[in-house]
């Protein structure tokens, strides 16, 4: 493995990244700062970490944050119940607290001998104070296990990828410590590349037509949830499997349910395509 700064991630065969994103990932890795990624749902925020791990040949440790997740869970859990249980049967040495300390995702990422990619997914799902509770650990890349006094410090600073869906504003102190990237929705050219990864050798005429319909739908005013990349991929799969000709389908978009998930959106989309008939 080459030096961290020189080694560059360029996306992987199954993850096409815009040039901007590639650059920022490499800058964050070189700086050893966490990378905060935001963007529309379905723009591949979570998949990014997997692709980086694969591209750089590193292990991926994922921490999926839920509304009840506490910052401590990421560091370690002291399994007091197991210890109590073991103490009844006298078949294990319960005097060794270390045997009952289980490292969380963050702890494992620090303790790993190899450099790893750590994904903290949907950081905004947890309590508002959650990111603040991780400030020191992400800064120093180390923490102390209070029960034993052991220090878990990163041997190799992990590449930390944090995703957020904008459900909550993140605290300023947290933001100051990260590198930030906002994934813009791919334009048609990049989208064609992305589709090619999922459906290699797809008929160009079909792709062009499908993309035209897709981007027209995205532009429709008033949609609650605009279709994104993952919906496009599902839709294309349905189109290919059924062999429907988009031209023959006319105004009605076939399998529109794969693109628009809300009934109201479907109605709006259908209304929006009507005036074109009279033009």
């Amino acid at each position, binding site marked *: 493995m080459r030096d961290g700064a020189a080694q560059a991630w360029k996306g992987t065969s199954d993850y096409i990244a815009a040039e901007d994103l590639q650059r920022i990932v490499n*800058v964050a890795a070189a700086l050893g700062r966490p990378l*905060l990624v935001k963007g529309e749902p379905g723009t591949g925020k979570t998949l990014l970490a997997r692709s980086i791990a694969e591209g750089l040949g590193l292990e991926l440790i994922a921490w999926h944050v839920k509304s009840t997740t506490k910052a401590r869970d990421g560091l370690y859990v002291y399994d007091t119940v197991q210890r109590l249980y073991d103490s009844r049967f006298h078949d294990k040495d319960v005097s060794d607290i270390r045997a009952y300390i289980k490292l969380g995702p963050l702890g494992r990422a620090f303790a790993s001998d190899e450099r790893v990619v750590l994904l903290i997914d949907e950081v905004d799902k947890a309590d508002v104070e959650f990111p603040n509770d991780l400030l020191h650990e992400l800064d120093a890349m180390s923490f102390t296990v209070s029960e034993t006094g052991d220090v878990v410090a990163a041997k190799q600073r992990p590449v930390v990828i944090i995703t957020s869906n904008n459900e909550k504003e993140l605290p300023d102190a947290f933001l100051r410590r990260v590198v930030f990237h906002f994934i813009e929705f791919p334009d048609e050219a990049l989208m064609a590349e992305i589709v090619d990864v999922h459906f290699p050798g797809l008929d160009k005429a079909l792709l062009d037509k499908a993309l035209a319909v897709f981007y027209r739908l995205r532009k429709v005013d008033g949609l609650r949830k605009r279709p994104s990349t993952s919906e496009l991929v599902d839709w294309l799969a349905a189109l290919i499997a059924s062999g429907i000709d988009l031209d023959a389908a006319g105004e009605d978009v076939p399998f529109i349910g794969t693109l628009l998930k809300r009934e109201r959106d479907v109605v709006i989309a259908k209304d929006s395509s009507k005036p074109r008939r009279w033009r």
Partner: protein
Amino acid sequence: MSEGATGADPRRRTLLFGRLFFGLRGAGLPVGVSEWMALMEVLARGVVAPDLTDFYRVARAILIKHEAQFDTWDQVFQAVFGDGQLPTKAAEELLSWLDDPLPLPELSPEQLAALETLPLDELRRLFEERLAEQDERHDGGDRWIGTGGTSPFGNGGRNPAGVRVGGSGGGRSAIQIASERRFRDYRSDRVLDTRQIAVALRRLRRLSRAEGEPELDVDESIDRTCKNAGFLELAFNPPRQNQAKVLLLMDVGGSMTPFTRLVETLFSAASHLNHWKRFDHLYFHNCPYSRLFESVTSTKAVPTSEVVRDKPRDTFLIMVGDASMAPSELLSPHGAIDYFEQNETPGLKWLHLLRSHFTRAIWLNPIPSEHQRGYTIELIAQLFPMFPLTLTGLDHAVDHLVKRTTAPPPDLDPTLFRARW
């Protein structure tokens, strides 16, 4: 490579970067020393390719932490490395006067022809003069810089010869990317979408541990028992529940038509938020009288007095409306705009009744705060704390609702109702 992005003379580089740093801070972006040092570190380590485009994106990733600030970043970047103007507070403000223009007044061709047409030099001189005099946003009218009017200055207006304020860019260089200002839509002062509203409204909660049966805290009990050498020790917690109740009253009168979508967005965000103990909504036309309607179209209604009787006083009351109407609709008996209403009691007294009953009440007005003026708005704002229906306005409104129990309103001045309208 380590010489970085901008060439040989380190003093010149420091100057240029200094301008960027202070330009960003001057434009109100929270760029701190630690981010700046991080940027210097990547430059020193040669991580940045020696071209402006790469510097643009790397510097943005390190310095700017919210997509809402990208637009300001683009402007500052353009000013420092291109030929744009630094977005001083004044220029920002000028542009913000011209955002979200008011609908155009309908002008007859004669009126259009009658508007003054000025030669360009004269126009420019007048523009600068007027900019120096004007100190706030202005819409409508024929003199000040603003929108929807017939003054020669501003945008969205109808003067045949005028100075348009606000322009556009194109192309692909870093300066040009910056000048495209693609992130304009992410600015946080723009009007909101459902999700943003939901996020803002989610703060509207009142957690209390006081009510209900205490619950056994299993984790805490185990922890305490273990720490207690195996002797059972139980921990209890009262349940935490959101006790907030919300009543949303929406104006669907004629003058609210331009804001239909905005109000719909607010309503759908509020109603989909399974977050409150109770959520109710009712409609009124311009001003609430003896009845409140159950839907926009139907005439099915509940008596206002019943709402006041049945709803607990600590319900959050959120009024939504432009508060703009004929004074008689507020102040005169039989002043209601709907003929069938035939109200004996003037509208303002109904508003006063609602406001006196609910201890936490606010009014959201879709008209931007800069031109919320007019007699009826003034009168209503004396009763209800009034906030603009923008993200910032909503935030302030939620703050107000959560933090303060508002004192009961003063009695209405009886002389108000004497005038004949």
